[in-house]
């Protein structure tokens, strides 16, 4: 996983609450068996005027000029700003892969759906929770001054707004540690292989039906 320490970039204001993962990456793109290549189809239904299908040539499609990510300088944005309950709905990690493939490194919102939040942390895309009034403040600054840069610092757990205001955020220590160091979760867990085996021993004794091999 790509580590996240400090990132400074352009913020795209997506002024909607309840942005669901169907909107972030529509279902037809979930048919891919790869982890990459979802960026051109991030927010496909909002981003293009013509219906999209996998394998289409993006350069021949009709972008929706009203959609924020089609407008300079937001097409170069690396931080996404949205309203509450971002990433609700389906567990599809493809939504996170679409955002990272587009170039996003962080999403700032007043709240996130649980599964999206967890998926995001596993892919080096930092979900930053700020208070609603702080998010409102950022919307106002970014809309008044498009292209203004915001700095997200995971070491300090701060967001520095274009006008220099510093907002604090929190992230649990375990996730922060993994993100700062870009750690491979599985390798870390396998250090505890003996604990897992001991648990399985105990389960076989106490609840032997749980681990019985399914027949058929």
């Amino acid at each position: 996983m790509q580590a996240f320490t400090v990132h400074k970039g352009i913020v795209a204001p997506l002024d909607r609450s309840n942005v669901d993962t169907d909107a972030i990456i529509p279902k037809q793109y979930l048919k891919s068996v790869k982890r990459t290549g979802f960026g051109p189809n991030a927010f496909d239904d909002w981003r293009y005027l013509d219906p999209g299908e996998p394998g289409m040539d993006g350069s021949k499609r009709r972008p929706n000029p009203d959609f924020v990510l089609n407008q300079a300088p937001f097409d170069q944005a690396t931080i996404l700003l949205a309203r509450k309950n971002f990433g609700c709905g389906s567990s599809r990690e493809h939504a996170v892969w679409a955002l990272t493939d587009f170039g996003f490194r962080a999403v700032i919102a007043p709240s996130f759906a649980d599964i999206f939040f967890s998926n995001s942390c596993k892919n080096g895309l930092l979900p930053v929770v700020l208070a609603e009034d702080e998010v409102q403040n950022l919307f106002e600054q970014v809309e008044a001054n498009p292209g203004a840069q915001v700095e997200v610092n995971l070491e300090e757990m701060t967001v520095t707004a274009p006008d220099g205001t510093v907002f604090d955020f929190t992230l649990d220590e375990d996730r922060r540690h993994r993100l700062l160091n870009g750690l491979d979760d599985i390798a870390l867990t396998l250090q505890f292989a003996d604990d897992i085996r001991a648990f399985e021993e105990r389960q076989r004794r106490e609840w032997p039906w749980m681990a019985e091999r399914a027949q058929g």
Partner: protein
Amino acid sequence: MAGKTLYDKLWEAHGVREEPDGSTLLYIDRHLVHEVTSPQAFEGLRLAGRKPWRGDSVLAVPDHNVPTADRDKGIADPVSRIQVETLESNVTSLGLKFFPMADVRQGIVHVIGPEQGATLPGMTVVCGDSHTSTHGALGALAFGIGTSEVEHVLATQCLWQKKTKAMQIRVEGELRPGVTAKDVVLAIIGRIGTAGGTGYAIEFAGSAIRSLSIEGRMSICNMSIEAGARAGMVAVDEKTIEYVRGKPQAPTGEMFERAAEYWRTLVSDPDAEFDAVVEMDAAEIAPQVSWGTSPEMVAPIDGRVPDPAAESDPVRAEGMQRALEYMDLKANTPMTEIRPDKVFIGSCTNSRIEDLRAAAEVVKGRKKADNIKLAMVVPGSGLVKQQAEQEGLDRIFLDAGFEWREPGCSMCLAMNADRLEPGERCASTSNRNFEGRQGQGGRTHLVSPSLAAAAAVAGHFIEPSALKEA
């Protein structure tokens, strides 16, 4: 000291190790796998030279991409076909349990888990699918995970989790005739909102929940995620134990009795404390119809489309306005005047035998209305389909002009060929009414199976009891 919640008990029974910050390595008993969220996980495993930790914990099935018609011709869309073939080659090369498309046991992963007894009370159950909460109806801790976590469970049989808060949603009293589990859960989401359960595990309790069948409880737990909660659950009772008895993968004989004795302890203690409690009066819940593009946007069947002008929160009002525009609805329209173009009865929320019986009861002796271009019934599994056919339900639907299809996720998310055309309006028993969910530009109204059936017959939303005599 306060007693333990059901969630506490399930959590404590699966902790492998706890770190000082509260992160817990949680053991996973059952890992359900489907074709959409697993290929990148299997690839990751392969690239790292890892093998599944406990292959016998896996049950794999293709469901999202499978066709529901002309199945003998295979999958026409090459991209869908590759995804299903990739699942098959991944699981067969590792020797994992798998129901291919042609197997009568194939179906929607959340229908076949309980049906096979692959998911049991007291288990931790995960799947790369947010509707995994369905299995909580059996008194299990079941939740959806992303693909990185799918790979992690394959490799280690565990997940790092932090215990969430616990919420109890208590629905007390008797449900009115014609009010189903689906109406209860839509009313709950309407009340607490799509983020109301975020950061919580929800236990559904109260006399109205206990009065529901296990299948009804599954419909409720299924939509926990639409209320923001990763996990939803219902305490074990004798109905749970009778439901599990005799299922193909359930323990048998003396082992079953030993298991049942343990399962009976899977209830919240009377003095257990919850971080949040929501109480609802069952008698006040009416049949529900969603009007917007979020599952919290629901109204009772005898109600009207709400007016954004009456909403005081400006962000919320704007969301409502946007939803009405997308749905092509005017504020204050009676719900019964909304006329769908298509009707979809299916999905992991409502495709079990009781759902099909409820829909068939409404349809029996009646005909689909002329303005309904398509009314389709998609059973949740091959075994549900078989059971329905033995009961003659397929004839009832076919005689009424409905289509009777093969099992799969189908038009709930339109990854296969079943989808809405732009602008089409659908009465759907599925779980999400997001923009484009059932096809780009499609408009979804979430309802129960009996309301969907009634809409198909009348050509507009209506309470089944208000239909003319068949």
